[in-house]
């Protein structure tokens, strides 16, 4: 039985008091306990930003990569060993700015990993600049007169890219988030959760209170998560009422399951020493 104690590391947590990242860490660990996943079985991948430090705070396999590349790095790990539960953690700037190009491709491949985006709508670790999800008019150090660009809508993007698991959570509601993470890990295919993660130091606009006032739960209003059109409508709700929960979910063959040889042994388990290239040499004669 995996316990919270097993998942603890000796590293001091250096997020700001009240940071939304605490909620995500707690939801993640509790999800692993709920699923009874052993430490050896899980690999987490993180990018650069405050979120990236999470790799030091959970005692599972981990690769803290470079900015924007969580998705391809996690993809490589999963392709090499499909028996691993691979979970990518990215920031909003990490995933939606620097690494945006990878997002749609992972979705359309339906590679069997989970992506959790710590979406605080600001660059925190670089002391406060605008990101792809910052609100229009938002004043930061890089937009002192207010951002003139509207934010992008990652949920809608995931839906139109044919995502098979699209959800949104809130760090201020770790129980609800834990349930989303459990569902995401269980999902066979690319599971994606955008998580509202208030930055208490630099984001004066999207605060805990602001989120708490605006969010509601899709499941409490009878949303049918098998209806992509409805999900898309919901993904555009923003002013006053912002939906949390699973927007859309469906089962579809994963990247590996689409390969005839993808059903066999994980690549990392194949330790062939004497691969026969004679037929290839023969074909060149």
């Amino acid at each position, binding site marked *: 039985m995996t316990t919270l104690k097993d998942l603890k*590391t000796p*590293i001091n947590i250096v997020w700001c008091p009240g940071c939304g990242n605490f909620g995500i860490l707690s939801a993640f660990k509790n999800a692993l306990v709920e699923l009874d996943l052993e*430490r*050896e*079985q899980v*690999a987490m*991948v993180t990018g650069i930003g405050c979120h990236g*430090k999470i*790799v*030091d705070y959970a*005692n*599972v*396999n*981990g*690769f*803290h*990569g*470079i900015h924007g*590349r969580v*998705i*391809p*790095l*996690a*993809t*490589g*790990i*999963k*392709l*090499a*060993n499909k*028996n*691993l539960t691979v979970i990518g953690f990215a920031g909003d700037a990490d995933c939606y700015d620097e690494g945006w*190009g*990878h997002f749609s*491709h992972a979705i359309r491949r339906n590679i069997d990993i989970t992506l959790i985006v710590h979406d605080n709508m600001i660059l925190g670790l670089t002391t406060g600049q605008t990101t792809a999800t910052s609100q229009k008019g938002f004043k930061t150090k890089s937009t002192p007169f207010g951002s003139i660009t509207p934010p992008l809508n990652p949920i809608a993007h995931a839906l139109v890219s044919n995502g098979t698991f699209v959800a949104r959570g809130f760090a201020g509601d770790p129980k609800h988030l834990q349930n989303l993470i459990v569902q995401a890990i269980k999902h066979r295919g690319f599971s994606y959760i955008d998580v509202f993660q208030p930055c208490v130091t630099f984001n004066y606009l999207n605060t805990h209170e602001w989120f708490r006032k605006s969010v509601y739960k899709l499941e409490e209003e009878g949303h049918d998560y098998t209806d992509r059109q409805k999900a898309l409508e919901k993904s555009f709700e923003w002013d006053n009422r912002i939906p949390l929960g699973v927007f859309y979910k469906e089962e579809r063959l994963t990247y*590996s399951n689409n*390969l*005839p*040889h*993808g059903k*066999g042994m994980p*690549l*990392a388990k*194949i*330790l*062939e*020493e004497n*691969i026969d*290239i*004679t*037929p*290839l*040499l023969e074909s*060149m*004669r």
Partner: protein
Amino acid sequence: MIGEIGMKINELSILIGGEAGAGIARSGFLFAKTCMRGGLHVFGTNDYQSLIRGGHNFYIARIDNEKVHSQTDYIDLLIALNAETVMLHKDGLVPDGGIIYDKDDITLSSSTLDRKDLKLYPIPLKKIVREELKEQLLMRNTVALGAVVARVDYDLTLLEGVLRDTFRAEVAESNIKAAQIGYKYIKENFKNDFEYRLKKMEIVGKRRIFLSGNEAVGLGAIRAGCKLYAAYPMTPSTGVLHFMAANERKYNMIVMQSEGEIAAINMVAGAAFAGVRAMTATSGGGFCLMSEGLGMTGITETPAVIMLAQRPGPSTGLPTYSSQGDLRFVIHASQGEFPRVVIAPGDIEECFYETMRAFNWAEKYQLPVILLTDKYLVESQMSVEPFDANRVKIERGTLITGEYGGEEEYKRHKITETGVSPRAIPLTKGTVVRTTANEHNEYGYTTEDPNMTTKMMDKRMRKLLHLAKELEEENMKTTKLYGSEEVEATIVSWGSTKGPIREAMKLLHREGIAVNYLQILYLQPFPTGIVEKIMDKAKKTIVIENNKTSQLSSLIREYVLRDVDHKILKYDGRPFNPSYLYQRIKDVL
């Protein structure tokens, strides 16, 4: 070989030229393979532009009794599939050379050509295809190939065999018919006045194979147990992607055409972290994009094999031509300092063996290994002895498979004497494997501590020292010396210049001029000791490179503290020709 008076037997340089999209490279390949199957040695190289239709493409095949290492700049027989080909290449024809062409394309005479010596073989190629064969225009290439076989008095059944093995039955049969018509046309309409002949040789030993550098790299990777190949198409490295993709299912690999080179290098890193042998290939532009990921594999000590096939830059440059301009770039690419291995194969055999070795170095020393090739090397084709699949044994270093039996908690970045840590992979019982692109402690937790920072940098760089020692002690040919020791001058070079240099040495040898040639295969770690020893003995040193600034000379200066005497440099996108090198070497002697 001298046969009847004036006859040249089994010494032939043939050029097939035409528009892009006209199947030039394919025809060259078919003819080259036909020659190889008759026991002859063949070298083939293509020249094409970055477009799909129009423009001018050509393929040169050189055929000989003995092993040939490069093309020549002269042509014995020209196969012109359009009028432009004649005009562009007629001056390259040797005295009494021949031209096979379509008389509906162009009317040739000694006055239009301004040469009286050339043998002209006009064939109504298009007419034959349309009226006699009722086939698509592309079939005229095969008619021309049949004509070539007839013209050099070679064995048509060999060409038929190649056609049969290349195409599906129906297509093969119509191609064979086309070849037979071309063959017959020459025999019936022209007298036997061409001086160049090809004769079947007895095949001694194993039957040779005909392949490109890209295919040799792919073969090496498959044999080495590469299980994940991720790449984004980029000329001239794309041949590896095609080869790996074609063999993905047969060899239980995953071949991923990623959304770009940044994704490719990160997928390779992820896969290698998870314990499989992984590789990518690209050209300079893609390598630029991979640079940040390259540094990540350095600091996280993740094995990665990256093939960079150079083409002329800067930027897009000449996308389908060849260059050696990226040597300094690969040695220094990415921020900060970390150990890496740079290997530059010089021929197709080395493409195979060094790719296999690259995986060994990557895993034994847990670092990135760059195979530095170029367009000329990876897209040229050559007949070679079948590779010895057992020459390079698979060595996976400190990889822990199964269970971790250590007493202390597992440390992915444990500081050891050699700098190499035991390498567990995720899902190894008893371990949690963690790493980070941030500086870290032995467990792989981020650190900013000055002492640990120093220790970790020292640990990583120490690996290179031990690797260099192993290369030396195991007598791993990091350099190769061709020619005797008592010579007038020593040529120093790296990579694909090897072929033309060896051919130029043959030409010099015929005149009694003795030079030797030091090929530097391993550019990092630089084989300082050997290079120093050979330069000590050299009366004169000549560096030959396909770049502007003679990057190898600057490396020699850096490591051996010495200037070379002469530099022969070429940076027009085209490989050296042996006769050009021969002349330039003579000039400086």
